[in-house]
């Protein structure tokens, strides 16, 4: 009996040893995750290159950059003070926001522009209505276009530069309205899923201001007897 219990004691020690080793690994992983949590919560560490924060900033810089270009043309070529005023507002606001986003990317030590496909950071849900656009973007990619929703093509921009008077004002409003609407899902996604407070806040500001500008431009278009463009 005493011999048996001695043997069993040794067996037990062995299984205890295995259990301990497993526990140690588990505790190790847990400790690793716990140690990372404070950095992720307050996010003073740098968001990864494939994070929502970096993806939003890089793609929104591209999106804003074209709005600045369209607004620059409108300030020079429109004869209508109300059009020039909204163009000035968009130009200065979005150029400022580009600067903010480039500042973050610099602090995070990330590239200022995306290197791969656009909007790949929007992975969390499929209900933003751009699921259909992915296929469209793929198809366009083959023919040489890499445009995000709402972006004007090179032909659109050439038409805008060539237009004058009433025709210019209508085309500018149509292109800028579509541009605002196309950027909205990205802004809403950034507002919801970015890990950095400043990113969520700026994305939320973009949603609010661009929605009010969208209403204003829709009204200005209606005054000129024109219809908005369908989303591209």
């Amino acid at each position, binding site marked *: 009996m005493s011999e048996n219990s001695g043997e069993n004691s040794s067996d037990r020690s062995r299984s205890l040893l295995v259990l301990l080793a497993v526990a140690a690994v588990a*505790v190790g992983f847990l400790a690793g995750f716990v140690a990372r949590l404070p950095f992720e919560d307050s996010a003073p560490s740098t968001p990864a290159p494939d994070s929502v924060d970096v993806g939003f900033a890089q793609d929104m810089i591209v999106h804003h950059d074209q709005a600045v270009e369209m607004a620059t043309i409108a300030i020079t070529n429109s004869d209508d003070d109300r059009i020039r005023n909204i163009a000035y507002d968009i130009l200065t606001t979005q150029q400022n926001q580009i600067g903010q986003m480039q500042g973050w990317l610099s602090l995070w030590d990330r590239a200022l522009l995306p290197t791969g496909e656009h909007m790949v950071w929007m992975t969390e849900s499929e209900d933003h209505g751009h699921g259909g656009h992915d296929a469209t973007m793929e198809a366009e990619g083959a023919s040489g276009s890499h445009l995000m929703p709402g972006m004007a093509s090179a032909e659109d921009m050439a038409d805008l530069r*060539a237009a004058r008077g009433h025709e210019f004002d209508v085309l500018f409003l149509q292109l800028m309205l579509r541009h605002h609407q196309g950027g909205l899902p990205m802004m809403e996604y950034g507002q919801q899923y970015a890990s950095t407070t400043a990113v969520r806040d700026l994305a939320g500001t973009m949603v609010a201001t661009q929605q009010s500008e969208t209403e204003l431009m829709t009204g200005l278009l209606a005054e000129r007897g024109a219809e908005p463009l369908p989303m591209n």
Partner: protein
Amino acid sequence: MPSGSVSGGSGNSKSGAKSSKAIQAAKKKSGGARGVPPQRQIPWLTIGGVAVVVILVAVIAVSIIPKAQDKQALEAWTPSESNQDPSGEIEGVLKIDYPAGVHIAPGQRVAYDQSPPFGGPHDSVWATCTGTVYAQPVRTENMVHSLEHGAVWIAYNPDLVDDAGVDTLAAKVDGRTYTMMSPYPGLDAPISLQSWGHQLKVDSADDERIDQFIAALRLNRYTYPEVGASCSTIPGSFDPANPPAFDASEPGPDAVPMEAESVGEMQQAPAGS
């Protein structure tokens, strides 16, 4: 904390008498344990040491694995604080330091030291570089200014690149802001990429170094002089649908030299010539 959990289980001398059910269960399962001497010491120090090492490895792995996954394809070619000019690792890139901000008067020419040039004095008006594909050659003095704003310029010899090659290059430019592309008659290679102070000549539009060059140098805040400058242009100063024409002739004796140093000096030059 982890070593505490190890020492907490060290009631080894008492463990034999604790649970007879557990002992029975262990006895049934155990096969090879019979030859082990009953009084054998369990090496808790060794176990504890191994556990600490395992924990350390786990902690390190958890913090390092995501960083390793970050390095993907072109991402590896983008600039960072520790690798400010990744183009240094691209074979064939020519680098020259040029002083920034030297402007010429409209209509003046510059006696550039490179063809296509990638730095030096330039027109005060830059060429539109918001992902702009120019079908016709453009005045070089305007294109060089866009490089100062952070753009990458893809120049190609129209006699040496076929339509498919031009389409491949255009796909890298169209809709991608801070890039521009134009034919460059007389270019001594099929394709030449320029950013401020950097040039890479390649033979094929499919050369993988083209995308690497763009990833490394487009809007690279460590390599272009005028940080924050725009690629948009004001109508009236520059029209991308009708840009100032490329001049294939040799610059004359009145051309602005590369050594020109300030805007003030430049404004004197046309008056004297």
